[in-house]
């Protein structure tokens, strides 16, 4: 892995973190951000690592914890923020909000909040890539809870049967709603579920961006070689709840603290410092640049107009 890529992963993770910290802050101001807000804080290594291994033409299908995926795929930060605000300048003109962000410009074709709803669609996009003989793949991001949905099994079985170029990423962040994984399944490692479909299932340290990146590079090569889909279980942890209104009473404080001490951003930053690829001054510079970028996205969203109410009637049919 080259040094440039390591920087890229680092910057992507930091940008996502600052973007979401800003959202946490904005959610506390009444009337600022309408509706629900579900964050991926603490899981940035999966987003940066996976998307860092993809080309722009590769497709991602994601879920309610999508900010990191979209930012790492290269979505326009201002348009993301404006959409989260519900403004007309948002990437979906205020139709989707934070939970359904779609950014076709970077082939982030669908964010679905139906748990497990994305994977049948990912079968369709991967099928189209194979049908059109494109040298591209699809990645579907799912949470651990989605592996209990029927759609997950139907889709992976079909993808395996047809040898589709599909990487399924299970971001196992320990919880599904307020339930711990062991309360909802006897399967210890969700990667084991791959056995039922006759495809490989690998466990990856989801807090290690470089490990995620390398696993994805290999998985992508496998897909492009026509060897069919693969399941990667990235073991990580969510620092925030299921929405910013979640009080996380079910998450032990020491558990959160233990995972926070394994912060994926700090981990890569230390490696970069050790390898002398980054200086303390560089870190300050990158940090300043990112804070500026987030602030200007907020300013853009704040200053953007609301959609006119009648615009609700647009965009149903072509």
């Amino acid at each position, binding site marked *: 892995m080259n040094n440039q890529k390591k920087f890229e992963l680092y910057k992507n993770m930091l940008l996502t973190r600052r973007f979401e910290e800003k959202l946490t802050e904005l959610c506390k101001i009444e009337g600022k951000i309408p509706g629900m807000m579900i964050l991926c804080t603490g899981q940035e290594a999966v987003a940066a690592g996976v998307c860092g291994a993809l080309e722009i033409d590769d*497709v991602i*299908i994601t879920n309610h914890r999508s900010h990191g995926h979209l930012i790492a795929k290269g979505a326009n930060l201002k348009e993301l923020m404006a959409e989260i605000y519900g403004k007309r300048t*948002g*990437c*979906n*003109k*205020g*139709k*989707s909000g934070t939970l*359904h962000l*779609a950014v*076709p410009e970077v082939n982030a*074709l*669908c964010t*679905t909040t*139906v748990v497990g*709803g994305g*994977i*049948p*669609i*990912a*079968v*369709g*996009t*991967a*099928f*189209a*890539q194979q*049908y*059109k003989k494109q040298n591209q793949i*699809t990645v579907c991001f799912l949470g651990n809870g989605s592996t209990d949905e*029927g*759609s997950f099994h*139907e*889709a992976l*079985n*079909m993808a395996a*049967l*047809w040898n589709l170029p599909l990487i399924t990423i299970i971001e196992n962040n320990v919880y599904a709603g307020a339930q711990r994984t062991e309360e909802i399944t006897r399967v210890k490692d969700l990667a084991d579920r791959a056995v039922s479909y006759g495809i490989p299932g690998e466990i990856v340290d989801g807090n290690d961006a470089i490990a995620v990146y390398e696993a994805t590079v290999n998985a992508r090569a496998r897909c492009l070689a026509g060897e069919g889909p693969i399941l990667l279980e990235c073991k990580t942890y969510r620092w925030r709840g299921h929405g910013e209104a979640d009080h996380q009473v079910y998450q032990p404080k020491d558990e959160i603290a233990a995972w926070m001490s394994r912060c994926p951003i700090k981990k890569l930053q230390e490696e970069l410092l050790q390898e002398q690829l980054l200086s303390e001054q560089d870190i300050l510079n990158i940090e300043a640049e990112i804070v500026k970028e987030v602030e200007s996205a907020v300013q853009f969203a704040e200053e953007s107009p609301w959609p006119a109410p009648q615009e609700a009637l*647009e*965009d*149903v*049919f*072509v």
Partner: protein
Amino acid sequence: MQQITMGQAIQQALSEEMRRDPGIFIAGEGVGKSIHESPVMPTYGLLKEFGPGRVKDTPVSEAAIAGLAVGASVMGLRPVVEIMFNPFFTIASDQIVNHAAKLRYLSGGKSTFPLVVRIKTGAGIGAGCQHSHNLEAWVAHCPGLKVVMPGTPADAKGLLKSAIRDDNPVIFIEDMMLNFVPGQVPEEDYTIPIGVADIKKPGKDVTVVTWSKMLGVALKAAAQLSKEGIEIEIVDLRTLVPLDKETILQSVRKTGRLVVLHEATRTGGFGGEIAALVAEEAFGTLKAPIKRVAAPDIPVPFSPPLEQFYIPNEEQLIQAVKSIIG
């Protein structure tokens, strides 16, 4: 003109469209290799002509089949997938209701989903309520889906071609019994626009609005009523969404009377929508109350006399018509 059934007409539409556009593929349970290897079946012979790359026999996985259509269509292909029986729509419904119908809107109009879901429907095959259940009102109630329900082979061919060429998700619901009823079908390439009703029989006394298999019931009733000097006008909707309101209203303004006839159960059925439309927009022209003829609010029963009791028939329609003529 050729004399063929709806199944054969659909087969022609599919094969002609697939020859025309290599981006069209079909998928579903047994759309290629089928337990019903019969020339009247809609996908007969397609596997042989187009091969397994474009005629995809799938696992028994309705959610995945519908999702396949959603994902493939956003990538620019034109999938035509099949859900074997209307009740199985409930298993596919997340992908159809929450995704196919909504994703264009959620993208702010950036993405398009040119997909067709063919669904077989209708009572009369003796398979009971988990294979027979008309759910068109459920689908029509989901904004973002077009809903087509042809009643003749010729309409089926022209409408399916339009559905395939449409850039929006179209749910194309075929009554199974019509696969065995022949009709005149043009041999050339033609389309019938989605959203345009057709007056299958003009008349001056009562407007009967219907669709799909009940068109046949309406035509039989019309023949009998004619003998008694009563001329009903049959409006075959062909498409529920978008709804051809103008044709319905014009007919009611002319006759002053309305009976809605459908096979689906009465409560919450699409017939209520037609009645409400006329009550809202043509109330002043009504000379009598609006009547609905529909199935009773029960699941489709199995035993032949019970199943026949369930399906609305011409006698019920005749009575409804006479009850508002006075």
